[in-house]
């Protein structure tokens, strides 16, 4: 199984433990990822706020490079990148004006985009291409007794995602269950984490984060599993401030890929788990027969 791979800026920075866990896990499943040559920032949400013409061009450059690279689907783990790339793809298709701008810009660099690239999220590809049964086989250390709150965040289920339900997504639930974890009912699974507002307008942004954490604790979860670098950072990094403002809501937040790694028997340090502010409490001792 081959995919071209768009990491996005975060996975090289704040979210590097996402990449650190994603790559070995994919390798372990026999999935071949080729990092997109000279990819650039997708523009995220901030760029749209300044100039959607340029924002489209920015994202389109990556699509064009991916198209050049070959027929493989483009896999991107970061929610923001997933949304922006998909959105740009749609807008280029739906709006001649945007398409014109994009093609002119690409042309200036002797690039072009015909619209053939499929943008995929790891969850989508794990469930629909790899398949849960294959993953099940690789599980050497089931996450027995680990209560996980599945947190999808906003941008992989809204509004362009096609692989899961926008209101009650279940792909990660099913995946975690396959790993042997106990998936707790978490009604906030698609609520917003506050995005960049946690830094810019903490009184508003951090409160959203607090609500997510508090509800996870209330539901008796040991850990929150997330799919997005920004969500992970928000849920992990601000516990001091949250504690000061609204009281404790201490719970670790990790990437679903990190949990996969653990279930596949990989050592925690290889999976970047050491980078957490709130460390995940160690799993119960592995079963003797393993």
């Amino acid at each position: 199984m081959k995919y071209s791979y768009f990491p996005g800026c975060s996975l090289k920075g704040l979210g590097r433990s996402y990449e650190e866990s994603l790559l070995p896990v994919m390798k372990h499943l026999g999935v071949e990822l080729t990092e997109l040559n000279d990819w650039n920032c997708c523009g995220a949400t901030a760029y749209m706020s300044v100039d959607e013409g340029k924002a489209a061009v920015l994202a389109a450059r990556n699509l064009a490079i991916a198209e050049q690279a070959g027929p493989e689907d483009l896999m991107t783990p970061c929610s923001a990148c997933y949304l922006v790339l998909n959105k740009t793809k749609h807008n280029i298709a739906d709006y001649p004006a945007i398409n014109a701008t994009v093609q002119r810009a690409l042309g200036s660099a002797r690039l072009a985009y015909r619209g053939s690239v499929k943008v995929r999220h790891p969850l989508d590809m794990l469930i629909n291409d790899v398949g849960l049964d294959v993953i099940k086989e690789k599980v050497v250390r089931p996450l027995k007794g680990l209560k996980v709150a599945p947190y999808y965040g906003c941008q992989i289920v809204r509004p362009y995602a096609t692989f899961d339900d926008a209101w009650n997504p279940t792909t990660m639930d099913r995946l975690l269950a396959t790993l042997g974890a106990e998936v707790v009912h978490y009604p906030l699974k698609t609520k917003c984490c506050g995005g960049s507002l946690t830094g810019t307008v903490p009184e508003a942004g951090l409160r959203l984060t607090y609500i997510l954490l508090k509800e996870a604790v209330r539901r008796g979860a040991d850990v929150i599993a997330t799919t997005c670098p920004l969500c992970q950072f928000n849920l992990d990094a601000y516990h001091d401030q949250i504690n000061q403002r609204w009281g404790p809501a201490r719970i670790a937040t990790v990437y679903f890929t990190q949990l996969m790694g653990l279930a596949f028997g990989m050592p925690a340090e290889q999976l970047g788990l050491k980078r957490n502010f709130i460390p995940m409490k160690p799993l119960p001792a592995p079963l003797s027969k393993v």
Partner: protein
Amino acid sequence: MMRIERTIKYEGDRVRGFGKEVMGVPGCEQLWSCIQCGTCSGTCPLSIYMDFSPRQVMALVRADFKNEVLRSHTVWLCASCYACTTECPRQIRITDIMYALKQRAIQEGIYPRRFPIPVLAKEFYEMVRRQGRITEMLLVIRLFLKTDWFAALGSWRLGIGMMRTGRFELRPEHIERRAELAGMLDSAGAEGGKPKEAA
């Protein structure tokens, strides 16, 4: 002692054509059929902090109250979670409308001063234009320097934490073909600058 203000609006307060212009932006045309049901505000996780609820912003745009909209905090509190867009019974892409409004606010320089989000947006924009990629910590630092020192000091413990967890990356990330990207962005400038023409 309470302050008394006149809140009446005169026709002169409207900027004729503003609504039309916004609804001309690709993705914003559905606003024509807004029925003011409030689903957007109801689903919005941040509407509780806004001076105008998203629904009110939609009404103001349709009614050409440009200054009121661009001066409000609302657009800057949108975290782009797209809940409103997926839930709207008229399939109005409210998040995209918020973007269109942010652009206009930034272009016209009328947004709440020292309110960090527009600054973040601009800093982000500049960094991408120069480097092609984002280095979050650098971005955050520049942001704090530009907006308020105390916030920067306030979050020193966060900074330490970043160092400890090895996520404090100060080496600027950048792409190889920076010139190429800059060229592309400039060639998009014409429309980009004035999205209304991109409609």
